[in-house]
Structure formats: C-alpha cells, structure tokens
C-alpha cells in the first residue's frame, strides 16, 4: 500500500505534538503562531534529528534562543539554571528534539511510511541558516511560550 503523506498533515501533527511535549515534560504552555514569520536569528541552541525511509526522508530542527534553552533545561531537569553547563543544555535540547521526531516517526509509521530516526545532534551559534537540498520542502512552525519563541523547522521529501 502506498502511503499518502502530505506535508500540511506533517505540520498539523507537529503543531499538536510540540504543544504536548512542552506541556508534559516541562509544564510549559506553547501556543502555535499560525502566520508568524521566522524570528530574528539571535544566538541559539538548535537540536536536529533526521528521519529516513523508503517513502519519506527529512529532518526536524528545534531552534531555541540560548537563554530560553537554559530555562527549558532547568525546567526539565528540576535544577537551578546556574547549575547547568552547556553539556546539560545540549542534552535536554537534543532529547526534546528526539521526542518530537520520535512522535513524528510513530505517526508516519502508522500512516504507512515506515522510517528510522538518527541520534540527536546540536548546533550552537547565531545567524546560521540550514539550507535544504533540492527537492526537499522546508516548513517553519513558530510557537509562543511565555513570550519566548520556539521554532520547529521541518525538511521533508515525500516519495
């Protein structure tokens, strides 16, 4: 059976799933900002996890501004921010990206598009852009979380 995955459906799933991950793991309320543009490229911590299968390939990037990434790590680990080093923050952002992509993988598999996921990787810096290769679609999903911006960037190639 050939799967009928559409990119808007992936975005719709990810909109729900990010809200769920932040609510469940962090008790933080994230809200989708449907028509928001990409926020300024300040210094940030970006988690990335790739997925690949016969019918679909791509990657999920979770962009958080550095101060908010520290806040997220502190909330997830139940530790004061001053006790956290770069390694702890990287690990938390990587794990959050892993949960986002793990949920997407389950949804894709249940929709008939079996795939595998990579281990998480972290990019730190400012003013960098991740360019998709030709034929890969890119979608930005922007969320508000207590006046902080969460950006999920999805690169996907279906078929």
């Amino acid at each position, binding site marked *: 059976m050939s799967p009928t995955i559409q990119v808007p459906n992936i975005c719709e799933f990810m909109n729900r799933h990010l809200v769920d991950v932040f609510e*469940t*793991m962090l008790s933080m309320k994230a809200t989708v900002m449907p028509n928001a543009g990409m926020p300024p490229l300040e210094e940030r911590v970006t988690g990335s996890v790739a997925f690949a299968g016969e019918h679909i390939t791509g990657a999920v990037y979770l962009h958080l501004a550095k101060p908010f990434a520290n806040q997220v790590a502190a909330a997830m680990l139940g530790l004061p921010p001053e006790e956290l080093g770069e390694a702890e923050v990287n*690990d938390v952002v990587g794990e959050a990206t*892993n*949960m986002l*992509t793990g949920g997407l993988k389950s949804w894709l598999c249940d929709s008939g598009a079996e795939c595998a996921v990579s281990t998480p990787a972290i990019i730190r810096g400012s003013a960098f852009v991740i360019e998709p290769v030709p034929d890969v679609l890119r979608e930005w999903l922007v969320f508000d979380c207590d006046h902080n911006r969460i950006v999920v960037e999805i690169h996907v190639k279906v078929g």
Partner: protein
Amino acid sequence: MATKILSVDDSRTIRLIVGKAFRPYNVTLLEAANGEEGLAVAAREKPELIILDVTMPVMDGVTMLTKLKEDPALKAIPVIMLTAESGRDNVLQIARLGVRDYLVKPFKEDQLIEKAGRCVTLEKKPAPTPA
C-alpha cells in the same frame, strides 16, 4: 531499606528526570548508559526494577531485555520500557518481549511513579524536621 531501581538510558537528561521523579521516595537509583552497562549493573546490584530505554547505542533495550530474560538470576526483575515511539508496531513488539509495562516519551513523572509503584514498594522519605 531503600528500593533499588536501575535506569538504563543513553540520555543523561532522561536519567536525571527519572532520578528527579524518585527523589521523594526511599529509592537508590542506579544508572547505565546502554544495554551492555545495564546488564553488568543488573548482575552486580540485582535491582528490584529496571527502567529501560529502547533505542541506545552499543546495546539497545530490546537486546538487553532479551538477554535479561535468558538469565535465570535476572529474568524475574520487572522491566518498564521507555520509548519515544508510540507507533502500533513498536508497542506490539515491546509487549511481546514480556515487559511489565511501558511508557511513551514525553511522559509525566506521576505516570512513571504510578507504573513503578505497581512493580515495587515505594516508600515516601520522611519530611525533614525543622531545625
């Protein structure tokens, strides 16, 4: 005596979250970063419960669980699997392995405590007395 619980996960974040969940209880938390280390700690410490991640480098959770069930000294230890994947096939595969329960990430600490409490006795630590 404290209840010994082993957390096997390659993510330090998840091991810290598991530790945070059990902090109010009289629990000694043991940790391992992959299945191979997990088997070694289990053989040495004989934990009363293992909380086991599925996807890990070196030795994954499925392989560790299979080896655990083959070992007469360890096969009775209850195992709760932690997985980031909630897909039907993944859940069915986990269920077939003979785990006591499973938990899909993201999870609330209360859910972990509830599931662990069905496998082992969890005693709350006494509240600290004011100085």
